[in-house]
């Protein structure tokens, strides 16, 4: 593993370059950059961050509105500025950031093949942190029928077009989704001079924070159609209308628009995790990790919205801070207990992260378990059951709402038996 691979043809001696950082981090979004910033000053070896985009910073780069940096920096800044601060902190701490560089596959247990304009390179590290983030499901994955029209975007593509490429969008948009990212899309549309005529959500109540929703409603004069579903896109070659179904009555109506923004419905970019053989949560499609963010592959960690699609950027960054601590412990020779308690969920919860609690392990990042719910519960009482007994029941004073992450203090785990059977998290209303 320590010698470079050389070509077998002596006529054309061409070495595949080898890099040997101490830690390699895949993805320079908030989680990856924060991991790098915290690790680099504390390690003697190199911390290498791989970013396939031409600039580091991740999704905040093109979310050109305020609201970033609250929990991790104690600031209230725009996405692009937040991305810049993260970049500067990582670089300032001594981490190497390679952009236009993509880790394409594994060459070994902690070894990656990467492609960059600098070459096809192998990276052998002592530890790997996967921070590849998440993306919104595009139209095909949502199986939206209708014409193949121009004017259909995910928020990611919309914001890339408007904020990074300064393109114009249409005049009348329908936004699918009514969660935080949907309002972020509405802000981008307004910036681009496009009116949001309707937001649709399958849920009976808008999914984002109520306060934000009310302010947003006034600010954007946008109607939110609850309990509705987009059933068809109409228009060739450009979008002319969408068909919306009322999920309670089955009635359908047509809404004229020239732009459709598909928001939310996140899926982690789990390709590297999956190809490493790391088990994947069947619902969130995230790699399974324990509270120290370890995957089942020794020395391979995961952090950020790859694990919880998706929480806000500052939470992803704070995952990175936690990952940095756990990677250091690993490099110092600390190895986890091989046993552990599996965390499971019952409806209306869809998934929980992290997924495993081991004896002697630290609490999860920010002392929170992160969950996703299908249904709005205003004042949920969270119940943990293990080996047929209720081990904790705790009332929380914040709602569990679809479209945003529901956070449970990890203190609820204090009373579980860390050598016992799986723990199921459910809700009593």
């Amino acid at each position, binding site marked *: 593993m320590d010698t470079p691979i050389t070509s077998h043809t002596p006529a*054309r001696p*061409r070495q*595949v370059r080898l890099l040997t950082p101490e830690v390699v981090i895949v993805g320079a979004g908030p989680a990856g950059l924060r991991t790098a910033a915290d690790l680099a000053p504390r390690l003697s070896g190199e911390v290498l961050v791989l970013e*396939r*985009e031409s600039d580091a910073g991740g999704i905040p780069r093109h979310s050109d509105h305020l609201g970033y940096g609250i929990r991790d920096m104690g600031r209230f800044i725009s996405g692009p500025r937040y991305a810049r601060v993260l970049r500067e902190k990582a670089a300032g701490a001594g981490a190497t950031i390679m952009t*236009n560089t*993509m880790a*394409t596959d594994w060459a070994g247990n902690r070894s990656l*093949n990467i*492609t*960059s*304009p*600098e*070459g*096809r390179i192998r990276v052998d590290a002592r530890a790997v942190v996967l921070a590849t983030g998440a*993306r*919104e*499901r*595009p*139209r*095909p*994955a949502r*199986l939206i*029928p*209708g*014409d*193949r029209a121009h004017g259909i*975007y*995910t928020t*990611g*593509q919309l914001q*890339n*077009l408007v904020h*990074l*490429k300064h*393109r114009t969008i249409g005049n009348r948009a329908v936004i699918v989704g009514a969660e935080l990212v949907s309002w972020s899309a509405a802000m981008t549309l307004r910036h681009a001079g496009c009116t949001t005529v309707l937001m649709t959500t399958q849920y009976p109540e808008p999914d984002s924070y109520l306060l934000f929703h009310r302010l947003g409603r006034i600010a954007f004069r946008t109607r939110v159609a609850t309990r509705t579903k987009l*059933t*068809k896109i109409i228009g*060739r070659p450009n979008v002319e209308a969408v068909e919306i179904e009322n999920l309670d009555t089955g009635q359908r109506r047509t809404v004229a628009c020239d732009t459709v923004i598909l928001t939310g419905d996140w*899926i982690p970019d789990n*390709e590297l995790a*999956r190809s490493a053989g790391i088990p994947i949560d*069947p619902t969130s*499609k995230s790699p399974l990790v324990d509270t120290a963010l370890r995957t089942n592959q020794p020395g391979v960690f995961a952090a950020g919205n790859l694990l919880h699609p998706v929480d806000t950027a500052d939470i992803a960054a704070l995952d990175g801070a936690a990952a940095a601590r756990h990677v250091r412990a690993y490099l110092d020779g600390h190895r986890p207990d091989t046993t552990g308690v599996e965390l499971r969920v019952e409806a209306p919860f869809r998934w929980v992260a992290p997924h495993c609690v081991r004896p002697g392990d630290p609490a999860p990042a920010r002392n929170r378990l992160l969950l996703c719910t299908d249904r709005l519960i205003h004042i949920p009482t969270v119940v943990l059951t293990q080996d047929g007994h209720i081990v904790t029941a705790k009332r929380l004073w914040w709602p569990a709402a679809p479209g945003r992450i529901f956070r449970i203090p990890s203190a609820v785990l204090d009373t579980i038996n860390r050598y016992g059977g799986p723990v199921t998290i459910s809700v009593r209303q």
Partner: protein
Amino acid sequence: MSRTTTDPTFDVVVIGAGIVGSAIARTLSGYQLSVGLLDGREDVGEGTSKANTAILHTGFDATPGTLESRMVREGYRLLSDYSKATGIPVEPTGAILVAWDQPQLDTLPGLREKANHNGYPHTEIISAEQVYRELPNIGPGALGGLTVPDESIICTWTTNLALATDAVQRGTTLLLGHWVQEVRTGSDGTDPVTVLRTSRGTVQARWVINAAGLGGDHVDRMFGYDRFHITPRRGELLVFDKQARPLLDKIVLPVPSVRGKGVLVSPTVYGNVMLGPTAEDLSDRTDTGTSEAGLAFLLGKGKQLFPRLLEQEVTATYAGLRAASDSPDYLIDLDARQQYVLAGGIRSTGLTSGMAVAAHIEELLADSGKIQLTARPDLPAPPRLPNIGEAFPRPYQDAERIAADPAYGRIVCFCERVTAGEIRDAFTSPIPPTTLSGLRRRTRAQNGRCQGFFCGAELGELLDTGGGNAEKARA
């Protein structure tokens, strides 16, 4: 014989730059003839050729004795060889027809016999256990199967592009955006000149070959015939994430039965798994939208055929139109008086048979005695097309290529690993893309699971600048 400024008349004009038309133009421009290749759309292969199931067929299930049977059998051999020469991605996966009920099982011996009649003796009837050994992940309830070891998967886009590029390099004039609206046939008897009025001016030709696919019956009528009718048949397909590919390494074909043709599940040369197609007759020859019923039908079929597939993400949904003809066989016919050749009623098997159809028409022309076929002495070698198949090395994996040209090290479409170098090459190729979908068919860019979440804006810019910014990566 050549078309010059003083003689604006082509010796031959082929209508339709799909696989069949491109193959014909390629073959005929191997002679000392001026050849025009017309298409109504803005790219080659924009009609039925772009949206078939991308299978290189042995022809085992054709109706024995038909022209189609012979064309598919010969085309299989011709296209297999041509693929090796030009770099069209082909994977010899083999296929298994899986029987799910007793009537289907009872059909298998007859199918095997039919295959023998079609000159394909390598099929074998296998038991349910053998089916599950070969296809461990398909749904429960299979009763048996018929293997067709030489059915292969192929890139239909590269096939079309290779044939058209070859034709252009041999001197064919490609005229895109030329919808044929009216035909005036010459009637001077000895050497009639046909005038085609198109959406972009008139085009004159001594010979016209109709390979207009979906519009073939319309063009045929312009020559005074009424011998076949085409119904656009919509076929919807689901393409599943590459993470599904390990579930399947063979084509799973339906057994044709009285209850209609089922759907197939197939690996794709791009490393995905495809489920489809539906079959729905339409009246609109341009409606390539997907339908709620079609998608629901496919999900239902998939659940039964391959439940594990449905746990995977859907990367793309396609709806393509096939030219369903009321003629039971290919209609290939030479009209010596009007100097007009019809290549009509060519169903989705045209992907496989296209080169054989071209050879057949070449023979018909030679036999007519009305056109002189003199081989060109300076025939250029067939083009080498960029590989977009997953089974063969791609630029992003090629250390030497990246070292020589860093543009091949800059991946701009992450999901499909398409590099700036490949995009630049597409724009500087003999038939450059003019639309995003054209770029997608040439490079795979934006065909992946994110469908543009990451790269959509960047690719749009590359398209507008003709790949100009891809150049920057070299600096």
